[in-house]
């Protein structure tokens, strides 16, 4: 028998999950493993499909845990035999205690940043003229053949990518600086070539969530060139270093 594991935590009891359907409609229960409990269900031995319904069910169970105490959520699809799960908790006891202490009393908040317009991506093209003449010992490369034109096009692309990366990093730094100490920890991913250029997850004290949201509203008003999307509170998916 293989268990589907939603999260590990302390302070969790079955009452928090009563009547809650897990992945594939399975019944959710709490498995006591010493000082730590695992929230699990038994959806059968078939692989759990990564579809919308199951993804929502996985988060629903973790959100129910978050309503009681901040858990360490597992990655979607985590499965383990009961004895293996027990051994894992026993072997990793100290690390789990430390990981739980890290998230205790905190929740994850998420911020996504997009540029307001596509215009910023193309600003690099305007500086090309002078720079090209400097290349190849001052020769006028613009008048050359297909191979040279190809390299010039690549140069434009590379400069555009570098500029986009620099601007995404600046936006991420602006966000971190604006939040100050409200984010106890952050996990940031920059994707300069995509529409959403920064995806930041912040670990925030529960008591500071309202202040965090207000600060982001103020930050959003500062930057006309950026669009912000804030969401949360979420279980600390980005701060839970377990399977």
């Amino acid at each position, binding site marked *: 028998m293989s268990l589907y594991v939603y999260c590990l935590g302390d*302070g969790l009891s079955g009452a928090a999950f009563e009547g809650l359907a897990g992945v594939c409609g399975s019944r959710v229960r709490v498995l006591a493993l010493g000082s730590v409990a695992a929230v699990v269900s038994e959806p059968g031995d078939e692989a759990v499909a990564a579809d919308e319904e199951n993804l929502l069910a996985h988060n629903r169970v973790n959100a129910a845990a978050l309503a009681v105490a901040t858990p360490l959520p597992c990655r979607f699809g985590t499965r383990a035999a009961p004895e293996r799960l027990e051994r894992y908790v026993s072997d990793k006891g100290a690390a789990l205690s430390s990981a739980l202490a890290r998230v205790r009393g905190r929740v994850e908040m998420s911020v996504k940043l997009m540029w307001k317009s596509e215009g910023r991506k193309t600003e690099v093209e305007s500086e090309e003229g002078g720079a090209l003449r400097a290349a190849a010992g001052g020769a006028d490369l613009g008048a050359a053949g*297909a*191979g040279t034109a190809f*390299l010039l096009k690549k140069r434009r692309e590379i400069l555009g990518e570098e500029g986009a990366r620099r601007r995404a990093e600046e936006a991420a730094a602006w966000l971190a600086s604006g939040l100050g100490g409200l984010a106890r920890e952050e996990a940031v991913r920059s994707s300069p070539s995509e529409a959403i250029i920064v995806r930041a997850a912040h670990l925030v004290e529960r008591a500071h969530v309202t202040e965090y949201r207000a600060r982001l509203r103020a930050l959003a008003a500062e930057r006309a060139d950026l669009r912000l999307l804030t969401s949360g509170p979420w279980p600390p998916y980005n701060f839970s270093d377990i399977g």
Partner: protein
Amino acid sequence: MEPSPLDSPAPAEPEVETEHPAEFVAELRRVADRLPERVNIDAQSVEQGLAKLVLTLIELIRRLLEKQAVRRMEGGGLSPEQVEELGLALMKLEEKMAELKEHFGLQDEELNIDLGPIGKLI
């Protein structure tokens, strides 16, 4: 491990806040549509998976070569003839890659490996 008194009940349900919902919804929907379906292990998909991996590595090296060529061009150490020759060689390499991608039915965005927290390979 006793439950901590600091672990007070969670705030309300997750809330989403933005002044630009349409743009974010459209973008997140587009990203969700790109999520891979479940992997089917059969001869065809294994062959394509291997081709994807190999072509991803070739693509990475090809892009590094392009960057190096552009740096050399910018450095001014190449004659116009050398620049032209280098450009033509890299152009042919790009054309050959396009042929291989078409042969294996791969799109540009598929030749990039998501390395999780550290971002994408290319």
